């Protein structure tokens, strides 16, 4: 998969618009969305983009996790024991691609809190706007994979 978005026309530095037959989707610009983590010694590490997030290169022990969207919105995630952010994407057989959300799984003692950051808004389902955050809960995972990153 290359870094092309054939269905994102008129993309600006901030966002992209996808024209469908019955719907029009406004989306973030995936090249300009990233996370930022801060360590206790003040060191700050910035992620890359939504194609290659850079999350797996992050070391444990940070104290703060923040997401920056291409719209300029900054979304701080409260402090938890560990995080696993998942980018939700869809890929059509015609090469079309949409970024739907970032779901940040946040580890608590008895459950996982999910912070879902919306990355698109459309003209049919108007409940969600770019940058909206929905918080939910789900059971603890049966096993923790290496992509979970622990805070200090």
């Amino acid at each position: 998969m290359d870094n092309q978005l054939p269905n994102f026309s008129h993309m600006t530095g901030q966002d992209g618009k996808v024209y469908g037959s019955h719907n029009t989707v406004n989306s973030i610009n995936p090249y300009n969305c990233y996370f930022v983590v801060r360590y206790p010694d003040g060191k700050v590490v910035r992620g890359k983009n939504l194609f290659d997030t850079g999350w797996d290169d992050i070391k444990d022990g940070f104290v703060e996790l923040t997401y920056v969207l291409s719209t300029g919105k900054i979304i701080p995630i409260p402090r938890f024991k560990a995080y696993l952010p998942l980018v939700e994407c869809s890929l059509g057989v015609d090469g079309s691609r949409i970024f739907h959300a970032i779901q940040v799984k946040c580890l608590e003692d008895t459950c996982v809190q999910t912070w879902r950051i919306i990355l698109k808004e459309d003209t049919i389902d108007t409940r969600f706007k770019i940058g909206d955050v929905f918080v939910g809960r789900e059971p603890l995972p049966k096993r923790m994979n290496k992509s979970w990153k622990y805070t200090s």
Partner: protein
Amino acid sequence: MAVTITTSFYEYDTPDWHNLSTVVFTSPNLVSPNSAGTRSHILPGELPLATWYEITGDDMWRIYNRQIASVESFYPAVDPTTTVSGFDLRNSITFEVTSGENYNNRLTAWDSVTHSSTNNFLIDSGRVKASCANYSWSGGTEDAPVNVEYGGSVDPIFQLPENPFPPQYNITLKGNTTSGINDNYYGDWDMIYSLPTSGRAGDYLIVRPWLDNINASVPYGVHDFVITLHYSYT
């Protein structure tokens, strides 16, 4: 980590993998291969539809007679708890993970590239069907495709992936909807790239799309839709 997924199909007469551009359902009375973009306007109910796979700006191949003889419209149901057969790389679309991992995979159909609505006659009336299977491969080269059979003893080179999800035959694809106890999508499951040193390749998903009940009740017109793989990654 970031995930890379390629979408392709195998062309049998001049053996090669091609990057898929479009799946085309149109008249069978065209010569195969034909130029990409060739369409024939036929009256629903007058002729059966043929399935073609198309490369951007190049050729398109009719899957039935240029790839491998098989039932063009659908796969016969097979008990997925015992053995899996009927799939063949020569008549299916292949999604291959070439690096990384992707979770919560779901294959379904939407009306357009916005991947968000099903306002399309074929989708809303349940005519968009597919048979799907996911697997990994331990047979060496992929250039000699054979029947996909795992769980049986006939051809053990196709293996269950790390997180197996049962194959499904002739399911309806319709957004994220369900009908009774049946999901109108294939999923959810995970796919993980196998290092070459593991002796395995993949994971793969193969999909054979088809249209059901094409008759005089289908209105004139172009009924484009998009078959889409949804997934998550880090």
